[in-house]
């Protein structure tokens, strides 16, 4: 670290040690930058800890798909690390009627265009793969190479790697962005470029970038190995995920490597307490029982909630903050932050370094917010 008028100076000061901030710290330190990370809470303790940890390509928005696909390839470097719990269970999208089933070829084509392999399966194959599914489903789409991970474990792993390369962790709150860098809670000043990766808390430091919080609930069971084998989602999931309803639920169930079953998902605007809403849990479970009735007799151990950071248009803000020469942002990934963390970090840091980015960075440019204002 260098000193500037008695103030510690870094190339890049990253605020927030969720999966986005730690991915940025990991890549920046690998590229030789002197990095500071500011995080007052647990590492990966916000939306990262509340996430399901499903690595998935969603095909309904081209920019989102490009970023996901770029990131999924980068995730392949993390398959063998114990604390990340990478498990290539594959994704199985379930069609409950002919109309959903009929959409599958178009989805497969969109995924194939970026190199993601997917296959349509009929109902016989569906029940061979997942015998516990409710009878009467039409079929589905299997994406065999997708996986699940343990997001807080990944955040810790990335942070530890960055720190091993000399990055400094400041376990306190950043109170303000100054003209030279960041001021910390204890009035320490840090000088350098600032990258804000604080998710839902983004407006505290950058009020010019709108961010909404979308609450979610998750339920996890005791260990019941072998009940399901793939991450299971209903094909109507995207409607729930991308719709703008005040609240919605979708069937989204995951086998953990422990044998536990993780059950999502709910989306809810307008609730800002982290309390568990039993009526939301009930709606979510009713939905999952429709697809997977075997869940009913299994024991739930815990329920938790979290908040997804939602930008104005659903795409993350990745890049330089308009009219703030030394301030950068990586936030607003909504429900895809785990999948897209590694690609997001490259996109931002490569721009900081003045390099050409591997994928088109324009759709994520925070400057687009000006046109929304």
């Amino acid at each position, binding site marked *: 670290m260098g000193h500037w008028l008695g103030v510690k100076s870094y190339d890049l000061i990253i605020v927030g040690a969720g999966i986005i901030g730690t991915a940025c710290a990991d890549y920046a330190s690998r590229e030789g930058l002197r990095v500071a990370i500011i995080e007052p809470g647990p590492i990966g303790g916000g939306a990262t800890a509340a996430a399901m940890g499903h690595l998935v390509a969603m095909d309904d928005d081209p920019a989102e798909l490009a970023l996901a696909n770029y990131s999924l390839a980068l995730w392949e470097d993390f398959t063998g690390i114990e604390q990340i719990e990478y498990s290539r269970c594959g994704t199985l999208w379930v069609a409950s009627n002919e109309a959903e089933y009929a959409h599958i070829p178009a989805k497969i084509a969109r995924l194939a265009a970026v190199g993601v392999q997917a296959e349509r399966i009929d109902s016989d194959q569906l029940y061979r793969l997942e015998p516990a599914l409710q009878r009467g489903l039409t079929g589905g789409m299997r994406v065999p190479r997708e996986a699940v991970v343990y997001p807080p474990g990944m955040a810790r792993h990335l942070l530890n790697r960055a720190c091993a390369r000399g990055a400094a962790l400041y376990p306190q709150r950043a109170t303000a962005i100054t003209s030279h860098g960041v001021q910390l809670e204890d009035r320490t000043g840090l000088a350098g470029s600032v990258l804000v990766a604080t998710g839902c808390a983004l407006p505290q430091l950058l009020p010019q970038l709108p961010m909404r919080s979308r609450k979610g609930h998750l339920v996890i069971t*005791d*260990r*019941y190995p072998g009940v399901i084998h793939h991450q299971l989602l209903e094909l109507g999931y995207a409607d729930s995920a991308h719709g703008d309803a005040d609240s919605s639920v979708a069937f989204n169930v995951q086998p953990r490597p*422990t044998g536990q079953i993780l059950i999502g998902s709910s989306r809810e605007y307008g609730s800002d307490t982290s309390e568990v809403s039993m009526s939301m849990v009930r709606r979510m479970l009713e939905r999952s029982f429709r697809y997977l009735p075997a869940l009913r007799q*299994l024991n739930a151990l815990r329920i938790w909630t979290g908040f997804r950071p939602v930008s104005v248009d659903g795409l993350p803000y990745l890049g330089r903050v308009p009219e703030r020469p030394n301030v950068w942002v990586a936030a607003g990934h909504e429900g895809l932050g785990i999948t897209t963390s590694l690609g997001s970090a490259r996109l931002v840091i490569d721009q900081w370094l003045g390099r050409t980015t591997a994928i088109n960075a324009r759709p994520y440019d925070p400057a687009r917010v000006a046109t929304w204002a």
Partner: protein
Amino acid sequence: MNQVRIAINGQALDVPAGISVAAAIARLQWPFRRSPRGQARAAFCGMGVCFECRVRIDGIAQQRACMVPVREGMQVMTDE
């Protein structure tokens, strides 16, 4: 005292009515379950708090054996 017949891991066992599944399993001296890393475990707190005595009862896994009285015809499976 009344006896009931249950089966533990397929083995028939006559036990006094009113005893718990945990007490029935202990008569055969089996471990109740294996921990995530494979250690043998058995009933520990005896009052439904520690969840060490979880077994499969009549097809439903992860039931606390110390909280359930034996019933005629009950099928119990331990982790062994």
